[in-house]
């Protein structure tokens, strides 16, 4: 691919989704966009690049953006964050929201749904902490294709064996030939919608907990900063944020600070937490 064409895609992806493409990722453009060019009946990637320099069809741009996203995910990915959710965050919120008896969670780059569904299952498994509460899990992603897969909630044998304990598989899934479909009870707890993290988040409302895992790694510093500034405004003064294992707020966000001994869990620096209760749930 010519350098000018590489820059064309690089700028487009930065503007549309925040994805930062370094020069060594040129091969990724080739391998992922060649099928898009084929789908749109261009003779080659080069002819598609020429067409994009004119007035690009928004649907084509969307296809390009979606083709370049990485959707890698799994149930209970990394384990630890879901333990923290169950052992630290839920017990704390069970107290702090005991009058409202409601809990709102935002899963900010939900991919094919394993992450929000893992949260829903954890909430169901720990109902004794939040009996009869209203639980709303909002799961968003930039890709309509992946959202459709997430809503379907049907996973291959391979996917359900990564991270999902067998007891939870038999309890919450129904077998459908080679695949496993999540039961309605769990599916109904999660609302999926398309949302671009570069956009204004105010329309989404407030959340007690935000998960934004394994997506910031694809963005540059400036974009990460902007997203974390906006997210700090989406949680109340005693809310929580989870980031992925390779992500941090250090040097990026003034608003959030890591919770000690709770890897991946962040609280507001200027927040208003019942520290005693928080430390008590953190100590188990």
């Amino acid at each position: 691919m010519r350098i000018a064409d590489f820059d064309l895609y690089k700028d487009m992806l930065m503007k549309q989704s925040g994805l930062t493409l370094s020069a060594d990722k040129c091969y990724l453009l080739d391998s992922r966009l060649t099928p898009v060019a084929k789908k749109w009946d261009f003779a080659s990637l080069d002819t598609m690049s020429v067409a994009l320099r004119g007035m690009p069809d928004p649907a084509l741009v969307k296809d390009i953006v979606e083709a370049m996203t990485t959707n890698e995910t799994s149930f209970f990915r990394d384990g630890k964050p879901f333990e923290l959710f169950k052992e630290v965050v839920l017990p704390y919120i069970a107290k702090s929201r005991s009058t409202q008896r409601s809990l709102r969670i935002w899963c900010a780059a939900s991919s094919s749904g394993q992450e929000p569904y893992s949260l829903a299952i954890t909430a169901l498994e720990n109902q004794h902490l939040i009996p009869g509460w209203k639980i709303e899990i909002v799961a968003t992603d930039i890709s309509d294709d992946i959202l459709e897969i997430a809503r379907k909630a049907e996973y291959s044998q391979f996917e359900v064996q990564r991270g999902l304990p067998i007891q939870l598989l038999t309890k919450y899934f129904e077998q459908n030939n080679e695949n496993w479909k999540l039961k309605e009870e769990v599916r109904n707890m999660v609302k999926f919608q398309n949302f671009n993290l570069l956009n204004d988040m105010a329309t989404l409302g407030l959340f007690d907990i935000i998960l934004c895992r394994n997506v910031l790694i694809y963005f540059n510093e400036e974009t990460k900063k902007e997203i974390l500034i906006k997210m700090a405004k989406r949680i109340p003064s005693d809310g929580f944020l989870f980031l992925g294992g390779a992500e941090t707020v250090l040097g990026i966000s003034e608003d959030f600070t890591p919770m000690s001994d709770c890897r991946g869990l962040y609280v507001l620096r200027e927040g208003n937490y019942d520290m005693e209760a928080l430390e008590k749930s953190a100590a188990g």
Partner: protein
Amino acid sequence: MKFCLVVDDSRVVRKVARRIVEGLGFSCDEAEDGQKAYDACQGTMPDVILLDWNMPVMSGIEFLEKLREMDNGSGPKVIFCTTENDLGHIQRAMNSGADEYIMKPFDSEIIESKFVQVGLMEQAAE
């Protein structure tokens, strides 16, 4: 070092499984049917057993039931590893005292994920 017994009538599967569990830092022995596995357990009780279902002489489920009746038989974590992939088989295995269940084909990631779940090892940091 923790010790894993791989029970499968296919030599190829045993070899693949052995390579994976040794890669995870376990020592490993093999048995080609339930009876041989039972004999092996009377010698040394493993920390974990990867267990096929359909085998000549003694099936995996028969072995599991006999194992759980042995003196130290509740010790090992038993993970079924079989092509039987229907709910009925899974439930029967769990009711007979299995700890986890892998539906073949498997890969190292699945075995590692299951070893973490039954508490044999820590989740690797990313």
